[in-house]
């Protein structure tokens, strides 16, 4: 695919927009892509969730946190460069079958990435999602204006620079636990576990998107496994990356 645009959208995050040749294949929010890295030292592809799509223009956006050599090289791509991409991979959020009417979308750090696409999908079906994002400080909560197009955005920061001070699970929004029928979350594992615990205690359906280290991205190498109650170790790339939290063995 050709790079249409690539620009920094936070202290260490880039927004990479790729042009798909022809009509976009069907993609669900929560699915991901494997991007080949333009660096000789880095051989494995980088799994990156789909941030947003523009069906009319056949564009796919990726919100990428720069953490190492691979993502650094991706951040240096310029408009017109070519990138080899496998997409869409994995299984997305369950919104197409569970039909949540009052969804709460919780994101931490770059974990907000797939939630824009999810917000976009809800909005297209006349549902207004609520976003609750957490970060260390205000600058690390990415793309706030984009999210507020689709729903209300609430925030928590560890230093109190935006929204309420603390973690997402401490936000006053959660005091009324009956206003949401399903939680969709993506972010660091400790945050996802705290969200899953809250959901369990308040009997709210919850699904999370996991970000495991992957190699193949198609269920062949068995590197990115997560232990499940029903099937033992399964590949996050193929069986996930989105899982209902009651399938995961996080609390036993």
């Amino acid at each position: 695919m050709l790079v249409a645009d690539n620009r920094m959208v936070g202290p260490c995050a880039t927004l990479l927009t790729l042009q798909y040749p022809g009509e976009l294949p069907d993609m669900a929010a929560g699915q991901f892509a494997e991007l080949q890295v333009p660096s000789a030292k880095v051989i494995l592809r980088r799994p990156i969730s789909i941030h947003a799509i523009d069906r009319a223009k056949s564009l796919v956006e990726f919100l990428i946190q720069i953490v190492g050599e691979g993502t650094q090289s991706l951040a240096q791509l310029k408009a017109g460069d070519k990138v080899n991409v496998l997409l869409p991979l994995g299984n997305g959020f369950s919104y197409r079958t569970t039909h949540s009417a009052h969804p709460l979308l919780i994101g931490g750090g770059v974990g907000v990435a797939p939630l824009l696409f999810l917000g976009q999908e809800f909005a297209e079906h006349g549902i207004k999602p609520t976003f609750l994002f957490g970060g260390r400080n205000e600058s690390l909560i990415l793309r706030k204006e984009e999210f507020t197009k689709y729903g209300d955005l609430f925030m928590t920061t560890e230093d109190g620079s935006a929204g309420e001070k603390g973690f997402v699970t401490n936000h006053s929004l959660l005091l009324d636990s009956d206003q949401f029928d399903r939680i969709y979350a993506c972010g660091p594992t400790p945050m996802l576990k705290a969200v899953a615990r809250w959901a369990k205690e308040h009997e709210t359906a919850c699904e999370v998107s996991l970000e495991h280290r992957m190699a193949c991205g198609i269920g062949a190498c068995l590197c990115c496994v997560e232990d499940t109650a029903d099937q033992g170790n399964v590949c996050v790339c193929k069986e996930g990356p989105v899982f209902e939290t009651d399938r995961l063995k996080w609390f036993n």
Partner: protein
Amino acid sequence: MVQLNTKIGSLELKNPVMTASGTFGYGTEYADFMDISRLGAIIVKGTTLNPRQGNPYPRMAETPSGMLNAVGLQNKGVDYFVDHIYPEVRKIQTAIIVNVSGSCIDDYVQTASIINTLDDIPAIELNISCPNVKQGGMAFGVKPESAAQVVSAVRKAYDKTLIVKLSPNVTDITEIARAVEGAGADSVSLINTMLGMAIDAEKRRPILSTITGGMSGPAVKPVALRMVWQTAKAVKIPVIGLGGICSATDAVEFLLAGASAVQIGTANFIDPSISEKVVDGIEEYLERHGFSSVQEIIGALEV
């Protein structure tokens, strides 16, 4: 038209390109990306007598020009393979070879005897070199005596083509190769992964849950090439070369060093259609150099 066919024991392959165990699933995972029937053979995921959960996550670390894995032979066991996977993979129009692993000699023998009854599995690859399991695996493959012992026990129970996969984590791989040849192996494949380690300095912790793991990818190719070259001179049975092959040129280098066939491993993760490209590339190489058959370049290294 150049002839690409090659022979491993009594097994005829349409071309010398196989996919390495553990890197190609059961083949079907790759059907969206390439025509898997164009391969010479597919070596499916390591199979054991009983189901195995494998090692805990994290199982993978990327290293410069390579990767470490510590999957630990996760599979659903040989009975599941026979009932659920074999009926699917037997439809693929290429040789399907099962990689067999075990914790003790009896495990290997029982698994091999079960696979022996499957008409459309013409060969097994005996894995005596997995570095990621506590019992068995590599323990058998690092000493000539124990390697010969497991191979001769399996030989009695298995009458089709028996390939033995060797570990590079030894002082002299030719010694092990000769021992398994003497015990009745029809072929040896090498190299399995090299024992390695990765550390997260910030956390002062190993990256892999098992601390050490098996290294693969382009970084290991020179070592693999050297071992294939040494082994091909030391044994009469055909050698299958693998270790970091990412292109047709890499594959040709292994053939020149004496391999009768090659396996593509980690490169499948980089480009899921690479193995088909390697088949085309070998054919192109042979045409460009005026050879009529791949047999003409096997062991044709000029020194």
